[in-house]
């Protein structure tokens, strides 16, 4: 009888300990995550919850239409006026024809304008020293140039597996998800980048 009581008590105690330790592990993972989020210098993510369902649909269209020829660059990487200028010239889009039907054109433009870099929030750094310029390329942003100016040419233009700074995802492992932390950089044939 005494043994049975001890067994029941032991089981309750053990399950209690297990529950607490699991909770502990869970919260430490969560806090690591939030710390890591905080550590990120900047991160571009669709704030899905802030967009209407219509915008999410448009986003899919952007991925399909623009992403079929090149990485669908996160909209937050260019200011509004740049996206408007890009959309005006799709018939000669950096030497390619990227024409869209009127409906898709309007839909994609409104998504891009709505999600473009802003003076406030995570994307504000991209507008640094931009003045009144309207660059057509993300690689022309002063902030972009500043962030990449220490990387030797042989790592990029001289590297067959990268070839150009426009190939974000060649080195930024999570570029497609809109994440550009230095921690995620692996230069093909070279390795991790740490400046």
């Amino acid at each position, binding site marked *: 009888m005494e043994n049975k009581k001890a067994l029941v008590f032991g089981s309750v105690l053990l399950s209690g300990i297990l529950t607490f330790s699991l909770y502990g592990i869970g919260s430490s993972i969560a806090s690591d995550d939030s710390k890591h989020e905080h550590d990120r210098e900047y991160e571009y993510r669709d704030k899905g919850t802030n967009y209407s369902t219509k915008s999410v649909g448009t986003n899919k269209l952007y991925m399909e239409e623009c992403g079929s020829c090149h990485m669908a660059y996160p909209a937050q990487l260019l200011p509004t006026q740049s996206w408007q200028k890009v959309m005006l010239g799709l018939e000669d889009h950096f030497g390619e024809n990227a024409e869209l039907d009127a409906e898709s054109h309007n839909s994609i433009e409104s998504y891009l304008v709505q999600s473009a870099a802003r003076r406030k929030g995570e994307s504000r750094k991209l507008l640094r020293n931009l003045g009144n310029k309207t660059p057509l390329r993300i690689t022309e942003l002063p902030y972009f140039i500043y962030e990449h100016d220490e990387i030797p040419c042989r790592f990029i233009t001289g590297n067959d597996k990268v070839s150009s700074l426009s*190939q974000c995802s060649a080195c930024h492992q999570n570029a497609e998800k809109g994440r550009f932390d230095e921690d995620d950089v692996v230069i093909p044939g070279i390795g991790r980048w740490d400046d």
Partner: protein
Amino acid sequence: MKKISVILIVTAACLSGLPAQASPEVDKLLQKYQQQGAAVAVPEQGKNLWYSKNGDRGCINCHGSTPADTGRHVRTNKAIKPMAASVNPERYQDSKKVEKWFLRNCKWTLGRLCTAQEKANTLDWLNSL
């Protein structure tokens, strides 16, 4: 046993004689091109257009010389799924998409719109591969 072999051989022979892919969207487009003035599609001419060059530009710049293989965008390096219908039938399920790419790519490659006949020929050829 012999009978079964004969049946199998006859069936295989019949199947190989059929047009490679029957896609309702392709049929719809071919009909549309005929309404726009095209005669019956000539796949051989589609093949000629595919391999022709306008200066240094041609279909194969990005799609590669074998439509059954994956191509690579000449500028962005992005992989382009095969064009042969037998390998990638998904390409020919949406006529709006087919027309979009004819518009963009004819303008880039030839510097003009393709005629209904050229589109019919090329589509018929790619659909037969």
